[in-house]
Structures are given as structure tokens and as C-alpha cells.
């Protein structure tokens, strides 16, 4: 056995995971489809939340991959293949965006001519907030993301095949521009798809709030993935405690980043106390939604923050994976907090579709991810940082990198 075998051959269990994920996804999707006939509005609201959850992991992985191209570090070499596989789910995410385009009228009140006609502020915003331009922008966002994912994944595969050292430099250059492009596109995408749910309200920090959330979702998912992989050959002899320590620290940083962005938004709006701005918090803090807000402060910040301070937890995969699963779940709650109160201003309301649709989309996403993961080797054996990142892995009993190893 060698490391550059495809994951499909090296880790036979992956086929079963893919099959089960698609099976769960199909069942959950069929059940959710009932909601389409019972309550279209609720279906689309839950769908938007589930979609943004899965998109967060996808784009977060793409962005973290680009960050790693620029920063380097052992953590990213171990994560490179899961990151690439997650980014390659983007074409599927693009297709899954179509229901939101078709159902935009059920989600965004600025698409209704009568609402706009009765509101002067919305008339002024129509230059930006109109359906054709909104669709053009969405096409642009997905074009940028898909192009970045395609180019980086293609070069990474070429690096595996040819071991050409110039490819690393090319990937760095694209990543530098790609991160700027991601920052701009995700900011506007979050304005278009989430903030415009309440078109009279605005917050300039909203874009980075969504961006930080995507980075956190991606890290939590990647931790779950490498903990799973580290329990099986060949990665069981390659991933060591220090790799978990690094990604654990990164997750801690993203937890704090999310808390910083969220609190900044709250503090500025609270201090300004302007009618147009505080409405968003009034819907949330003066009704039953307050409980969700308090839960977010506790479980999206306080609990993971305290747990991730511990060196022992970060270095023990069994404990770290529990924190990561918890974080993935509260990421969904955070999106619930951003989306659902807009449609249920009178108080907390949870629909069965808020459970079924996230399960459906996440399971389909996971199936696609595993399918992508199986197609390539589980480590980038010709990455220039490979030796530095993984140390003398052969001495730890790991299989050799390639069958025809250099002398």
C-alpha cells in the first residue's frame, strides 16, 4: 500500500458512507417535498436556511484552502484533500440554488411591486434590489466561486501527477486574488440572500459576519472529517496530536471572530438606537426569539470558547470531534436566527421543515463530498510542504508516499 493511491482504494469504508448519505438524503428530500404542497412559504424559508448552511461549509473550505496556500502550515497539508473535495461540491450547490431563484417571490418582499410602491425607502433601493439584477449578481457569484474551485482543484491534481514545483506558486497567486474575490462576493451574496429579507434594515458588518460563520462551519466540518480519517489507515500513522491542536486553535479563533462580529453589530446598533436599525433586534429580542439569541451567546460562543481553551481537549480527537459537531449544529441555529424571525415576527416558531430540509441537504451534500473525496489520494504527496508538515512519517510506520519513490 502507498499513500498516493486514491482514497477509494485506501479507505474502502468511504463507499458505504456515500451510499448511506445518499439514502438518508433521498428519504429526507422526499419527506420534505410534502412541505412544498402543504406550505410553500415555510418550505422556502427552511430551504434557504439549509442551503446557506451547506454553502457555508463549501465556501468556507474553498476560502480556508486559499488562506492555506498563502499562509502555509501543517494543518492545511493534512486538510488539503477534504478541502478540495468540499469545494468540488460547488456545482451541486449552484444547482441547489435554483429553487431559491424560482421561489424568490415567497422569500423577498422587495420582489412585490405593491410593497415597493407603498414604501419610499424601497423605491430608492430598487436600483439595486430588483429581480433581474439580483439574478445577474447570483450568476456572477457562482461563476467566481466555481472558477476558483475548478482552477485550484485542477492544479492540485496536476501537482499530484507531475510533482512540478512551479504549480505551488501559481496556486498562491490565484489564491491571493481569489480571497479578495471571495470577500467581495460573499459580502454582496449575504446582502442579497439574507440581509434583504428585511430590506429596510442594513448592517455593514453583516458580510463579514456571514463570512466568519462560513469559516467556522468549514473548520468544524473539516475537524469531524480528519478525526474520522485519522482512525483508519493510512492516516492513523500520519495525523498526530499537533495537527489536531492546530485546527482546534483555528476553530477557537473563528468562534471568537464570530462573537466579535456579532457583538460589534449589536453594540453599534444598540448605541446608535436609530429606529431603522433597531427593528431587526426588536423582532428578535422582544419576542420569544430572545431564547434563541441567549442560546447562541451560550452555545455559539461561551461553551465552545471555554472548552477550546483546554489544551487537552484540542489534542484529544475524541473530545475535539464532539466540540466540532456541536459547533456545526449551532451554525445552523445561527442561520435560523438570521432568517426565521423575519417571517414569524410575533414569536418563536419552528417548523418540521426546519429539521427535515437541513437533514436532506446536508446528507446529499455529504454524499457528494465523499464521492469527490474518493476520487483522489488522501494526501497531497507532492506538496512542497509535505515533508515539513508531516515529519518523518515513514518512521511512524506509515506506508511510503509513492510506489516509485526517489532514491
Amino acid at each position, binding site marked *: 500500500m502507498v499513500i498516493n493511491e486514491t482514497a477509494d482504494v485506501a479507505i474502502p469504508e468511504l463507499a458505504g458512507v456515500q451510499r448511506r448519505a445518499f439514502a438518508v438524503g433521498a428519504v429526507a428530500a422526499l419527506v420534505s417535498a410534502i412541505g412544498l404542497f402543504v406550505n410553500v412559504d415555510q418550505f422556502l424559508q427552511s430551504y434557504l436556511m439549509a442551503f446557506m448552511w451547506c454553502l457555508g461549509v463549501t465556501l468556507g473550505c474553498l476560502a480556508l484552502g486559499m488562506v492555506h496556500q498563502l499562509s502555509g502550515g501543517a494543518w492545511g497539508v493534512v486538510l488539503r484533500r477534504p478541502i478540495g473535495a468540499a469545494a468540488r461540491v460547488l456545482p451541486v450547490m449552484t444547482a441547489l440554488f435554483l429553487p431559491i431563484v424560482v421561489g424568490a417571490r415567497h422569500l423577498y418582499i422587495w420582489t412585490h411591486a405593491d410593497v415597493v410602491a407603498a414604501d419610499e425607502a424601497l423605491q430608492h433601493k430598487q436600483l439595486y434590489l430588483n429581480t433581474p439584477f439580483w439574478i445577474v449578481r447570483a450568476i456572477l457569484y457562482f461563476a467566481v466561486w466555481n472558477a476558483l474551485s475548478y482552477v485550484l482543484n485542477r492544479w492540485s491534481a496536476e501537482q499530484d501527477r507531475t510533482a512540478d514545483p512551479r504549480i505551488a506558486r501559481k496556486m498562491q497567486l490565484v489564491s491571493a486574488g481569489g480571497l479578495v474575490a471571495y470577500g467581495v462576493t460573499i459580502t454582496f451574496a449575504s446582502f442579497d440572500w439574507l440581509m434583504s429579507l428585511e430590506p429596510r434594515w442594513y448592517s455593514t458588518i453583516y458580510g463579514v459576519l456571514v463570512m466568519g460563520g462560513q469559516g467556522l462551519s468549514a473548520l468544524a466540518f473539516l475537524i469531524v472529517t480528519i478525526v474520522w480519517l485519522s482512525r483508519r489507515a493510512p492516516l492513523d500513522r500520519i495525523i498526530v496530536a499537533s495537527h489536531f491542536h492546530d485546527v482546534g486553535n483555528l476553530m477557537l479563533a473563528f468562534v471568537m471572530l464570530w462573537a466579535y462580529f456579532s*457583538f460589534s453589530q*449589536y*453594540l453599534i446598533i*444598540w*448605541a446608535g*438606537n436609530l429606529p431603522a436599525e433597531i427593528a431587526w433586534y426588536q423582532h428578535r429580542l422582544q419576542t420569544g426569539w430572545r431564547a434563541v439569541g441567549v442560546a447562541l451567546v451560550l452555545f455559539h460562543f461561551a461553551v465552545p470558547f471555554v472548552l477550546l481553551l483546554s*489544551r487537552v481537549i484540542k489534542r484529544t480527537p475524541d473530545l475535539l470531534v464532539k466540540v466540532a459537531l456541536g459547533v456545526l449544529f449551532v451554525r445552523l441555529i445561527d442561520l435560523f436566527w438570521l432568517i426565521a424571525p423575519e417571517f414569524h415576527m410575533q414569536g418563536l416558531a419552528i417548523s418540521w421543515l426546519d429539521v427535515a430540509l437541513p437533514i436532506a441537504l446536508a446528507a446529499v451534500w455529504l454524499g457528494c463530498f465523499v464521492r469527490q473525496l474518493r476520487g483522489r489520494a488522501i494526501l497531497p504527496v507532492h506538496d512542497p510542504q509535505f515533508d515539513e508538515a508531516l515529519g518523518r512519517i515513514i518512521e511512524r510506520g506509515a506506508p511510503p508516499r509513492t510506489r516509485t519513490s526517489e532514491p
Partner: protein
Amino acid sequence: MATRSSIYGLMAEFDDPAALVTAAQRARQDGYSCMDGYAPYPIEELHHALGSPTTRLPLVVLIGGLLGCGGGYAMQYWMSAVAYPLNIGGKPLHSWPAFIPVTFECTILAAALSAVLGMLALNGLPQPYHPVFNVPRFALASRNRFFLCIEAADPKFDLEQTRRFLETLNPREVSTVAD
């Protein structure tokens, strides 16, 4: 001849880092615990080989951080609500959201100061005198030699036996370190 009480320990000199790490491992297997290794640059394996003692520094930093957190908040509460009450935008005198940024900064400041001062307090720096410098060849520890010093404070330390043990590790030289 120095008497027993005026000896700090025995020091072995090695040519390369691998020999030092092996020596430290062997000494630990042999039951020695009070010892230290000296090298011109950090060697991660040496840290493990010496049986790195657990440090209380994280606890010091945590306590410092918590004190900074509580102290920062209390300071603002006292200033805004007790010592100099001022109506700002009709908000209550005790407005916790406004206190959070400074509370956070005080937490970080106190934690960072505790980390620096706690580190100095626990490792005994700055230290103008240390017995190992009594060995003239120890000056090479900042150039190209690697030293292992087993201290007389070790319960297993015995001038003759420990010297014999160190000789088995193939050092360049074993020297007695005067206190």
C-alpha cells in the same frame, strides 16, 4: 577537593543533539529526575526526553485573565454608575453592552501581563548567577556543544555512581559543577 554540599551537579558534554537526547532518555530510565539539558538551539525531543514537568503557568494566566475581566467591568461600573453618573443618550447608568469592549481589553491585558510576569516568577529569570557557568567549557553551549547536567538535588545523585553512569553515555567529558 570540594565537599559534597558545595557541588551543584555533574555535567556531561556531547557532540551532537541526538546524543544529548539519548543521554537524557537513558538518565530518566535510570531513575534520575533532577536534571537539565543545554543546547545552542531549541530541541523539541529534548523537552520530552527530560520529562517536561507540568507548568502552573496556564493557571496563573487564567486567574490573571479572570481578575482583569472582573476588575475591568467593576472599574467601569464604579466610574459610570457610582463615581460620576452621567446620562448618555437616555441609557441606564449601568449599561452592560457598553462595558464589554473595555472588559475584554482588560481581560487580555491582565492575562498577558500574568503570562509574562508569571513566566519570570516560575522560571526564576532574570538570574545573574547560575552554577553551570563554573564549568569553563560550558561557554560552548551557545556554540556547538550539548550538555546534560544531573543535579545534586536529585535523590538518586551519588558523586561516584552518577559519574560512572554518565561515563557510560559516551560523553566527550564529565565535569563536576561547583555550586
